[in-house]
């Protein structure tokens, strides 16, 4: 800080004082006078008052930097323009400054004060850019200033500045690694950030500074998973790679049970160690005792949230997801990545190169995955050689009994190619296919022998090498091939091939007893001109022949050994000396010479032709280290799966935002964190509709996946839900907090679609809840409503609490029936004042919303629901049923409401004051609100004898109406009046569980308070209702078509209501 304050004083005058001295520093001018002069005029331009001249000068300087010319002597002249008004000049000065600050540390300090001022600027973008440049200046003396600036920026209001802070962290770390501890604190803070803008950058900082601190991730794991899809693409790559590593430390191997059932005799993927591990685990961990593997929901969450990113346009993102699936997914699910990887092969050749390398590794372990795409790996003559070779590798890995004939036919075409390196690779590939697949060995061998007569020497040489390897497997049957090859020694010049032939002849000399000595004779003649490897093999051949056929070859061998004795290469001299001692019996020869025959003519195991990509997968796929097959600097090892899963509760978050993770809640979390879709500014109604639908898609997606998922089927989530009451206190609280949060959201964003959607998910859960818990009761209830006409007394006998706590699912027919009953009953005026609408069972799937959480309400919990009953005192009001629960240990008195804050036209009918609410008890009241046919919230205060709480109620559009009874003809007539602008039609595809008539009726009636209109056609469902306040008709028609297509039409005079209703019903039907 001291340094900066010193320069602060100077900031005004520094330029004028500093300039003449530095300007005429002769040392900086360079040797060439012309250079010196040119810089001189640049300095003049920089000193001028005209921005255009300065700009011109800066442009020339930047051009110099770009070309790699040294412009450091201009530093003083440039740096004083750092505060220039002209933006472009300023930016170019920044460029210059960042480039040369390291070399001119003292002078660079002159600029610091400008940036410090920038850090305080009210404009977030200026703050960010100041921090960016400040942190890019690599001057150690300003480390404390940078640290301070980063800390401050990390708690800046603007996410953009926080992002810049995250970027600055690795810069500071590389400048001064001793700041690590402090920086980790900042990282920890930024990791908790909930904006997508920051997420990618901070994980990048985490990876650079403290990748080993995996514990920092626990609390943010679920958030990162949920944010992932909205993070910018580069951030996605970094996050996915990090999460792969994280998951490897926290979850169990999903393939643990299958590890021994690996395909085609390949070594089991997760070796036997894992098997042991399993046993140990069985002893150690009580939770997984010999049970079938159950995937951690968080593990599933990661897999599910990364899957859509396979569709990214960015190859790096696709690759990141692919490696994540390869390393983490159960075997059955890995297949999804194949298609995406094959797609990447269409991209630039560099991308192809990297992708093919990874595919090659994958095909070794998971061959089946790519088999359907075999043809995508066929080679074109225009491919670069390195791509061809990789494709060949993949094809070879994919070869099996069924497709080998097609592959070999392809290979035949390749052998004719003009690209000889590629032909050589093909021959090797054929060799590998032949060793791997016994059936085709003879065919391959014959093919390769034919190649021996090829005109191209390289081809022949490669064939010889491969044939040698193949022959080693079954030499007996192929002495004619060996003979043929022996003849080749006259023509072939490629050393490797010659060496191979010589070795073969030596090894199998008993198969060619006549030819072998002759070959040795020829070789002895040319010995001195041969390459080293050939010489070694000649010595070998000589030795072997000497042992088997010493009569004919003794002299030749001596001759060869003598030649070798004086060879230039010490290896050859050594070998000759060694062999001579071994085979030629002399007086001094040791014990070893007795065993010479055994030594030389031992049976040698056939070589295994292996893919160079074998075992490469111990490197994280997609990484640089994997590509190079060596560990690159900064590579983080991919840990092995743990033997028993670490405590999953570390990922639970206490703060209200991130509740305990039951599968149901996860779905909601996902929705809640939708920064892109939810608060896009300036969107009007229809846009939102699009958004909400895209969200509904997410719900449906998770729904469909839950089928395959281990523990996420609807019924299970329901049962979990019902158990929750009995579970620990804390969990319950979390649950409530969750609800509260959901409640809050619509208020904040003011978007109706959002609230609707949440209501939807809520209804889903409450439905399942009621199913599992209260089945019997719901049955009795439905009977009751049916019977109610006759036995009206029963109605008043219904226990209120029962219905409050357990919203009951009634079939839609009943819904409509009960509604009609209510109207009928009302008409009969049998109801007295006590008999307010709530006393009739709330029909349909009623969703409750939280009005006041018990924490904020200091023990008083308030929930409300739309009971869908006409509000007795005023038919233009919507009845809202409110339930108070007193969770405190003392009585709550005088519960009433005050000071409604309403938009014009809206009215509230207050509920009667509750005088005393004893501890632990609940009470239910009904109030009426006239929403004026709008979805604006009604705000008011809830008062007890001690406290006041501000609360608000916001109705979904479907609750703003009530059922009307029309005949088919009436319906058609009314519909005829509401054409044109008042009609909204949408095509849709019905959700999987929503194809029957019955289901459609149920979904529609639960989304909106309308009643069914009888209809002649069984392909059509019609519903009618009217808005509560103005009584405008709302007509809904759903026409089903073939497959799951359907068409939804809403006719309503109030277009806003109509549009919103369409959206809601659409959502209900498509799920």
């Amino acid at each position: 800080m001291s340094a900066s304050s010193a320069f602060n004083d100077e900031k005004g005058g520094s330029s004028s004082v500093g300039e003449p001295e530095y300007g005429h520093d002769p040392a900086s001018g360079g040797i060439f006078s012309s250079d010196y002069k040119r810089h001189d005029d640049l300095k003049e331009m920089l000193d001028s008052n005209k921005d255009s001249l300065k700009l011109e000068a800066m442009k020339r300087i930047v051009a110099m930097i770009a070309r790699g010319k040294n412009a450091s002597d201009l530093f003083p002249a440039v740096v004083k323009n750092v505060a220039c008004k002209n933006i472009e000049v300023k930016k170019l000065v920044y460029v210059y400054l960042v480039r040369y600050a390291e070399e001119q540390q003292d002078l660079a300090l002159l600029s610091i004060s400008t940036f410090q001022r920038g850090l305080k600027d009210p404009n977030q973008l200026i703050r960010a850019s100041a921090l960016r440049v400040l942190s890019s200046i690599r001057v150690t003396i300003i480390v404390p200033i940078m640290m301070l600036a980063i800390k401050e920026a990390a708690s800046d209001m603007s996410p953009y500045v926080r992002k810049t802070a995250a970027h600055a962290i690795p810069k500071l770390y590389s400048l001064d690694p001793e700041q690590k501890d402090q920086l980790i604190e900042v990282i920890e803070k930024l990791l908790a950030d909930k904006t997508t803008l920051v997420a990618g950058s901070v994980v990048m900082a985490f990876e650079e500074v403290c990748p080993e601190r995996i514990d920092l991730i626990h609390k943010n794991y679920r958030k990162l998973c949920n944010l992932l899809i909205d993070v910018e693409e580069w951030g996605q790559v970094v996050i996915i790679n990090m999460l792969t590593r994280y998951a490897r430390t926290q979850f169990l191997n999903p393939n643990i049970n299958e590890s021994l059932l690996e395909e085609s005799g390949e070594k089991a993927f997760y070796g036997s160690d894992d098997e042991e591990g399993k046993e140990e685990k069985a002893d150690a961990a009580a939770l997984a005792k010999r049970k079938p593997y159950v995937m951690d929901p968080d593990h599933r969450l990661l897999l599910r949230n990364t899957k859509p990113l396979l569709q990214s346009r960015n190859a790096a993102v696709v690759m990141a997801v692919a490696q994540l699936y390869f390393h983490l997914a159960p075997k059955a699910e890995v297949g999804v990545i194949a298609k995406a990887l094959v797609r990447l092969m269409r991209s630039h050749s560099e991308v192809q190169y990297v992708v093919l390398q990874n595919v090659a590794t994958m095909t070794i372990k998971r061959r089946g995955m790519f088999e359907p795409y075999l043809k995508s790996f066929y080679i074109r003559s225009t491919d670069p050689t390195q791509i061809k070779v990789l494709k060949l590798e993949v094809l070879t890995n994919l070869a099996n009994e069924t497709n080998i004939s097609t592959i070999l036919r392809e290979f035949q075409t390749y052998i004719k190619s003009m690209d000889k390196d590629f032909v050589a690779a093909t021959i090797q590939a054929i060799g590998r296919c032949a060793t791997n697949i016994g059936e085709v060995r003879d065919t391959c061998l014959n093919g390769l022998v034919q190649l021996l007569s090829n005109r191209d020497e390289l081809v022949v040489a490669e064939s010889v090498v491969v044939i040698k390897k193949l022959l080693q497997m079954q030499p007996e049957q192929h002495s004619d091939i060996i003979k043929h090859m022996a003849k080749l020694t006259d023509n072939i010049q490629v050393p490797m091939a010659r060496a191979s032939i010589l070795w073969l002849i030596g090894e199998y000399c008993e198969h060619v007893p006549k030819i072998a000595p002759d070959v040795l004779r020829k070789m002895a003649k040319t010995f001195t001109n041969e390459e080293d490897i050939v010489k070694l093999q000649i010595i070998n051949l000589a030795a072997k022949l000497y042992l088997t056929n010493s009569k004919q070859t003794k002299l030749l061998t001596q001759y060869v050994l003598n030649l070798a004795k004086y060879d230039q290469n010490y290896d050859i001299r050594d070998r000759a000396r060694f062999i001579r001692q071994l085979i030629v019996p002399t007086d001094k020869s040791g014990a070893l010479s007795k065993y010479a025959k055994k030594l030389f003519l031992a049976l040698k195991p056939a070589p295994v032709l292996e893919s160079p990509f074998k075992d490469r997968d111990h490197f994280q796929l997609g990484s640089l280290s994997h590509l190079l097959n060596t560990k690159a600097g900064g590579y983080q090892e991919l840990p092995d799966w743990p033997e028993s899963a670490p405590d999953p509760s570390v990922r639970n978050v206490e703060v209200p935002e991130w509740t305990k993770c039951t599968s149901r809640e996860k779905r909601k979390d996902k929705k809640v964190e939708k920064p892109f879709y939810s608060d896009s500014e300036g969107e009007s109604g229809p846009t939102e509709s699009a958004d909400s639908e895209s969200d509904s898609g997410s719900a449906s997606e998770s729904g469909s996946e839950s089928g395959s998922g281990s523990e996420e089927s609807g019924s299970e989530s329901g049962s979990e839900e019902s158990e929750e009451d009995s579970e620990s206190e804390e969990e319950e609280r979390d649950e409530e907090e969750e609800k509260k949060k959901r409640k809050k959201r619509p208020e904040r964003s003011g978007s109706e679609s959002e609230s609707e959607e949440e209501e939807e998910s809520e209804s889903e859960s409450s439905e399942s809840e009621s199913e599992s818990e209260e089945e019997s009761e719901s049955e009795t209830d439905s009977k009751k409503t049916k019977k109610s006409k006759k036995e009206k007394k029963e109605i008043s006998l219904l226990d209120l609490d029962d219905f409050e706590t357990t919203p009951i699912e009634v079939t839609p027919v009943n819904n409509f029936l009960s509604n009609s009953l209510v109207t009928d009953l009302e008409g009969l005026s049998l109801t007295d004042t006590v008999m307010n609408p709530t006393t009739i069972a709330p029909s349909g799937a009623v969703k409750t919303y939280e009005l006041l959480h018990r924490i904020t309400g200091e023990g008083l919990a308030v929930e409300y629901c739309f009971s869908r009953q006409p509000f007795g005192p005023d038919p233009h009001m919507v009845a809202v049923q409110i339930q108070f629960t007193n969770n405190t240990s003392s009585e709550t008195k005088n519960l009433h409401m005050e000071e409604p804050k309403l938009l014009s036209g809206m009215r509230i009918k207050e509920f009667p004051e509750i005088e005393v609410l004893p501890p632990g008890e609940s009470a239910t009241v009904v109030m009426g609100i006239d929403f004026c046919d709008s979805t604006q919230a009604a705000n008011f205060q809830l008062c007890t004898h001690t406290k006041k709480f501000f609360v608000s109620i916001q109705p979904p559009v479907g609750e703003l109406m009530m059922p009307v009874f029309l005949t088919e003809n009436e319906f058609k007539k009314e519909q005829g009046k509401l054409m044109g602008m008042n009609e909204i039609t949408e095509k849709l595809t019905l959700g999987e569980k929503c194809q029957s008539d019955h289901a459609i009726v149920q979904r529609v009636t639960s989304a909106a308070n309308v009643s069914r209109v009888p209809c002649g056609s069984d392909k059509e469902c019609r519903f009618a209702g009217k808005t509560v306040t103005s009584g405008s008709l709302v007509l809904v028609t759903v026409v089903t078509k073939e497959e799951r297509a359907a068409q939804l039409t809403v006719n309503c005079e109030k277009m806003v209501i109509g549009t919103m209703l369409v959206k809601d019903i659409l959502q209900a039907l498509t799920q």
Partner: protein
Amino acid sequence: MIHSLFLVNASGDIFLEKHWKSVVSRSVCDYFFEAQERATEPENVPPVIPTPHHYLINVLRHRIYFVAVIQSEVPPLFVIEFLHRVVDTFQDYFGVCTEAAIKDNVVVVYELLEEMLDNGFPLATESNILKELIKPPTILRTVVNTITGSTNVGEQLPTGQLSVVPWRRTGVKYTNNEAYFDVVEEIDAIIDKSGSTITAEIQGVIDACVKLTGMPDLTLSFMNPRLLDDVSFHPCVRFKRWEAERILSFIPPDGNFRLLSYHVSSQNLVAIPVYVKHNITFREGSSQGRFELTLGPKQTMGKAVESVLVTSQLPRGVLNTNLTPSQGTYTFDPVTKLLSWDVGKINPQKLPSLKGSMCLQAGASKPDENPTINIQFKIQQMAISGLKVNRLDMYGEKYKPFKGIKYMTKAGKFQVRT
């Protein structure tokens, strides 16, 4: 992540360097030159070259090598993808991405690189944001700038970066609101000697040019979305909606962008729109070879096959050719042995053919391989897969945009083996 970037031209000169962290000496490129020497063809330079202290990751585009220097582990595709994005941006800005264009606009290039990476990590790669920050140079603007002394750097701050739709710049205004979509499909195929298809697949893209005022929200639906086997989207497309309804719903970036690329799998039968009759023979002993090639349309649904170009890499033994085309022009480069025949449009009544003889090296044995024939063509107003756009709707803005959709089929990597 990315330390430095060097731009190397075809003759091996480093003509631009940019460093995001400490300066890395340009001598590091020597390792690259070494690798370049080892590789026989320019495209055979390995994309990743390890050196003792750094790793060099390079891409080759427009005969310029973009060599990125990195120091530690980073996904190679991350760097490669980024470098390609850089090239795309240059192309977007200067029309072409050549050494001359980069040298002429070196300041803009530098400003762009400065914005695209911060400390080696990508910062702003969306062209809409970059264009807000740095205006692309046009002739008019250059003239105006020289007269008025104003600059290329945008005066306003890059608010787009803060937006929730980061790919769209704010405050877009047009007098004519238009949205054009081009459905372009490419056929990749390998046809064997006898004319049967070994493999064929269709790769399609939808490129859009959207010039709409404000913040329009578009939905695009297809008549037959099931055709699309594998798709990848521009980040603006709402994925969930596609999953649920097979509808593309998006707030588009301003200007040109690639909305979607898709793949129609080889499992579906792919119609091959042209056929080739060929007879290429070399006779043992004689120094002559015969060359005959006839093209014809098939399965084109009545549309004309245009801009046909046939290229073939003849064997090294061929010294020269003596051919007569029935239409179009042909050239043969005796050095690279590349034969190219610009056919133009195929007239179904009078099929184009190229016939004649080839001179072989005297005394040399006959080449043992036959050349592959690469074909390029275009068919307008047709998407070979049969994909059809159903409708395009706009929400969120009141005006009526002008909408247009165009279909085209092209040959991708279309090879005929002989």
